[in-house]
């Protein structure tokens, strides 16, 4: 029965939100072809959700091992700045005519950026798996210092990029759809494959549920934990590229600010427990979409910015409640009692 499927509730929540938009936001589902690609609210949502989805995917595995990674935002900033600085390019005025020049070949720049991200992941991994620090503190270190590093590279300036091919990552279109979607799809497929076709999924869950048993069963717990942090940072790095490519610049101080919170939120909205163990990649994707749709809805409803937070919190509360079996039971009990009372009254 699909109603009992763990994914039912998150998906239902998403659908509900979309329905709301359908009613309140005129032309929300309206899609048109603009210079050769799809254009409309839904596309925007998917496009903007891309970085969050990536971060959430990485975070899912970390959380499955009973860990947490709050350095995601910092890693985003780092990879964004590294890429942007290397590609860079400056505008020079040649007798009044602005012209653009690029620095490093893009491939190298991207590799360097991802390399930096992997380094960050390795760092987190060593702290957690190697030294056995508590995940939240271990990653807190990078969360604080990472942004500092990024700003150190850029000297606190916003690095603006003038290099068309790079923009393609963030705002380019392929077969009418945003290119970032293909990136996300790729990463998702890869991860799902790893979980299905290899024993990785099983091992990660085991480590999350019962590390002692895992060790006695002969798992390399340390290696596994190390891996998930590296993976998480890699995802963060990639979303960093998308973000910076999208705004054609890298803002070391603001890029991916608080992204970690949204990512964790997405994972839990997707039905994965922060206590580790069973996890759902699809769930996390849905969770991310819920968040982005909500943000977008707030913008397009034209609500005053003061109440953004309240709305967001209320929705989160509701989604959580909708996922709590206990709440459902109590609700039922309440309803039946109400009915009974009516019966007596009659």
């Amino acid at each position, binding site marked *: 029965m699909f109603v009992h499927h763990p994914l039912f509730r998150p998906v239902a929540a998403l659908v509900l939100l979309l329905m709301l938009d359908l009613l309140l936001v005129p032309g929300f589902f309206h899609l048109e072809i603009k210079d050769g690609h799809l254009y409309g609210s839904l596309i925007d949502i998917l496009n903007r959700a891309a970085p969050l989805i990536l971060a959430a995917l990485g975070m899912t595995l970390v959380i499955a091992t009973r860990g947490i990674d709050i350095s995601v935002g910092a890693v985003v900033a780092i990879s964004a700045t590294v890429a942007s600085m290397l590609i860079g390019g400056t505008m020079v005025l040649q007798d009044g005519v602005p012209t653009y020049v690029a620095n490093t070949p893009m491939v190298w720049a991207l590799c360097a950026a991802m390399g930096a991200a992997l380094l960050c992941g390795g760092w987190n991994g060593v702290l957690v798996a190697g030294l056995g620090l508590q995940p939240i503190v271990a990653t807190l270190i990078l969360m604080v210092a990472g942004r*500092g590093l990024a700003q150190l590279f850029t000297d606190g300036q916003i690095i603006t990029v003038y290099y068309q091919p790079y923009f393609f990552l963030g705002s380019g279109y392929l077969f009418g759809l945003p290119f970032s979607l293909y990136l996300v799809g790729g990463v998702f497929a890869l991860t799902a494959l790893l979980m299905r076709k290899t024993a990785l999924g099983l091992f990660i869950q085991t480590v999350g549920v019962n590390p002692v048993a895992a060790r006695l069963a002969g798992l390399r717990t340390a290696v596994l934990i190390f891996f998930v942090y590296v993976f998480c940072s890699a995802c963060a790095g990639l979303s960093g590229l998308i973000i910076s490519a999208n705004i054609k610049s890298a803002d070391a101080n603001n890029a991916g600010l608080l992204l970690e919170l949204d990512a964790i939120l997405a994972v839990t909205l997707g039905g994965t427990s922060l206590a580790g163990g069973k996890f759902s990649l699809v769930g996390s994707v849905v969770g991310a979409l819920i968040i982005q749709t909500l943000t977008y809805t707030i913008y397009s409803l034209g609500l005053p910015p003061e109440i953004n937070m309240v709305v967001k919190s209320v929705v989160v509360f509701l989604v959580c409640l909708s996922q709590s079996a206990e709440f459902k039971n109590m609700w039922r009990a309440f309803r039946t009692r109400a009915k009974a009372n009516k019966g007596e009254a009659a």
Partner: protein
Amino acid sequence: MSSLALRARASMASPYFTSLATVALLALLLGAGGAAYPGFLSLQVLLNLLIDNAFLLVIAVGMSFVIISGGIDLSVGSVLALTTMMAAWMVQVWHWPPLLAIVIVLLVGTGFGALMGAMIHFFKLQPFIVTLAGMFLARGLCYLISINSITIDQPLFVSMSQTQLPVLDGYLSPSALIALLTLAAAIYVAHCTPFGRAIYAVGGNEQSAQMMGLRVARTKVLIYAFSGFCAALSGVLFSFYMLSGYGLHAQGTELDAIAAVVIGGTLLSGGYGYVAGALSGVLVLGTIQTLIAFDGTLSSWWTKIVIGVLLFVFCVVQRALALGARR
């Protein structure tokens, strides 16, 4: 003899030991500062650590209860802001008597926490998410009250803010005193009352605690209520400190508090730790900041990096000590 060795091993590997390590390292940090910067070890600088971090200490105390019980509370920073906002609004705009205002905000904070605790326990929701939502809500409510900052010139608040309790040739603020009292009370509760022990039990193994017939529900709700109360109290201290209510106050304080608690030797996984650790944790963070302020040459980003590095060195040394002890 072997059992003695065993005991020694156990005790040194215990959070008790890590808390001691924290204190030792703190002393080291202060010593280093004193050596590097003239006037760093002056009494007033040390007292300022307490004055400037009084509000953080109070939050950290509440946070230790939550963390020891195996939970987490991200809403504290926002609740703090909300408290300052409400207090300011009540005394400045509605001209309510300050004490009434303070009582009200404390009640509101406590209720807010209790509500979250109830959701967490009865609906089996995850603390992280519930309190995260609580964090958004509290901030949001601030803006609903007003997006401007409100200056407080109410006499009581002002005097609380500007009174200086002489200590030797330095002085301490009333807030700092309140914070220390809170800490003392919390330590008593944690180690000498059934409620306090129940917190540890729940943190050790909630299901077992239930099976052993402890009032898990009541305990958990109370824990979050207490954390809410602490957040509100520190909000009051904060409004003494700043003499203003503002929706953007104390952003990210929840992380500082968590860091302080963990540095103080409490395990995030719950069950192990000491409320007293909160103090050492807070002082460590405070000292790091003071060091940077005294140095006075660091750019914004170097500030971040240095904080990170110091945190790192700290955690690693602490860890190494614990491991070395276990060997």
